[in-house]
């Protein structure tokens, strides 16, 4: 599904992995490890000729075909236009979904915000707007960059339910939330200083020895939950 062959740039070095069809992935790593950079390489925002998507070379794909295969949801909604409303934004995002804009708006309880300009939404509301846009885009593979950052517990739960549901096809999720990682149970790629440090099954990642190796004593395991050890 996604294959990156020995990619290096100023931030990443020798990234080389292969994600099979139907496999979802969690991308972990400390701040500045290169997770977002890797995501941008995988979706083509940063040019490279080392990426293969569903058996085809990314740089040779037609723009429309590429949009059908991959989408990237950044950590923050960046928008230049002062006046575009949430609904208009979602209408622009609808490409390959069988769901309609109004259905997705009510699915995420955004009805009261539909006519508000995107720029005036709160960061949590913008986060939900981007999630809605990813559903409507309907790419075969979607990369979410910290989809639960800056969310209150209620919205975090809402996003979590969506992320694991089948309204999204295949997904790669970048996050720092180990509980989310543990509950989702997807395969994990852990990055450190631009390199792949760990790439294996979820279970293996959460083995005590591995956690100790990657996080030292900063993570504690209490009753099935992972908390920061303060």
């Amino acid at each position, binding site marked *: 599904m996604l294959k990156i062959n020995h990619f290096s740039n100023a931030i990443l070095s020798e990234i080389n992995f292969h994600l099979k069809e139907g496999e979802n992935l969690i991308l972990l790593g400390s701040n500045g490890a290169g997770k977002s950079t890797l995501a941008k390489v995988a979706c083509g925002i940063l040019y490279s000729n080392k990426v293969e998507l569903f058996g085809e070379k990314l740089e040779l794909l037609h723009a429309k075909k590429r*949009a059908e295969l991959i*989408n990237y949801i950044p950590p923050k909604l960046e*928008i230049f236009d*002062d006046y575009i409303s949430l609904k208009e934004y979602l209408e*622009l995002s609808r490409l390959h979904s069988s769901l309609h804009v109004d259905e997705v708006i009510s699915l995420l309880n955004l009805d009261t915000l539909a006519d508000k300009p995107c720029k005036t939404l709160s960061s949590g509301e913008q986060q939900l707007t981007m999630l809605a846009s990813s559903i409507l885009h309907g790419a075969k593979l979607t990369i979410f960059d910290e989809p639960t950052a800056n969310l209150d517990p209620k919205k975090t739960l809402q996003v979590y339910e969506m992320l694991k549901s089948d309204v999204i096809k295949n997904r790669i999720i970048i996050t720092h939330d180990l509980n989310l990682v543990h509950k989702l149970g997807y395969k994990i790629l852990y990055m450190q200083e631009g390199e792949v440090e760990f790439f294996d099954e979820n279970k293996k990642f959460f083995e005590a020895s591995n956690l100790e190796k990657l996080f030292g004593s900063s993570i504690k395991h209490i009753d099935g939950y992972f908390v920061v050890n303060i």
Partner: protein
Amino acid sequence: MKYIFIILSIALLLTAPFFGQIELHLFNINYTASMDYKLFWDLRLPRIIVAFFTGALLGLSGLIFQSLFRNPMSTPFTLGVASGATLGSAFAIVFGFVTLVPIFGFFGALLTIAILFSIASKIKGYDTSSLLLVGIALSFFYSASLMILFYLSSQSQSYEILRFTMGSLDVVGIRDTVPVIVVSILLLFISLQYKKEIKLLLTSYDNAFLKGVEVRKINTILLVSVSIAIGVAVSITGPIGFVGLIVPHILKAIYKKSADKLLLITFFYSGIFLVGCDLIARNLGTASDVPIGVVTSFLGAPFFIYLIIKREKR
């Protein structure tokens, strides 16, 4: 309110030809032997047409540039295309090709576009901001070249160049209006054709890219179209400042809508704005018409500042 503005605008368009240093009478303009007939069909009407379509073209170009460059300060002249046209025209004046001024002007503009995009294509993965910087550098280079031409020219030639840079809507006969009409309508058509892409580009370049827009291709198509249109307009009327900068801003402040919904509105009201300015320029009671660029700036600048203050207060 919207309809009142449209009706007022159309009334302005219909009555504008009749006012000037010599007032015309409606019933005389069909009488071929009269002075009014000649004045109306050969001078006034072509002038109104050129004013409308030049204004429309400048305003629409400004709107497109401000959207693509993400820069509220960019005008249709930002990329140096107008300076190129001015330089070409000045060259024609100084080296004795006075009858060919518009053609030299147009080639000056075309040459600029060619230089601009050949430099841009050498920059790996160029974006609009590097294009903007190259355009600004070119403008400075052209101003210096224009100074050399001034230095080489006689007094009367200098005056002619200066007069050109102030902008003028003097045209004789309907035939002269055809190029401006054609390019402005083509530009309107092209921009409407890419309305959805413009809308996506206005969210963010990355978002447009992810939604399958060929960002670089669309940018290039729009920028080249605007540049060619500006080249044609400037070679006929000279660089008329401020229309392309302020009219889109004023309309955005009034309508509070995204740029993609203002394409047609900007086209129409920029045209009306220039017709209005021209009407004032022709009726100030001075011995000759006040240069149109002076009127657009005199009217536009204070109103623009007023709008900015009002917006900041909100």
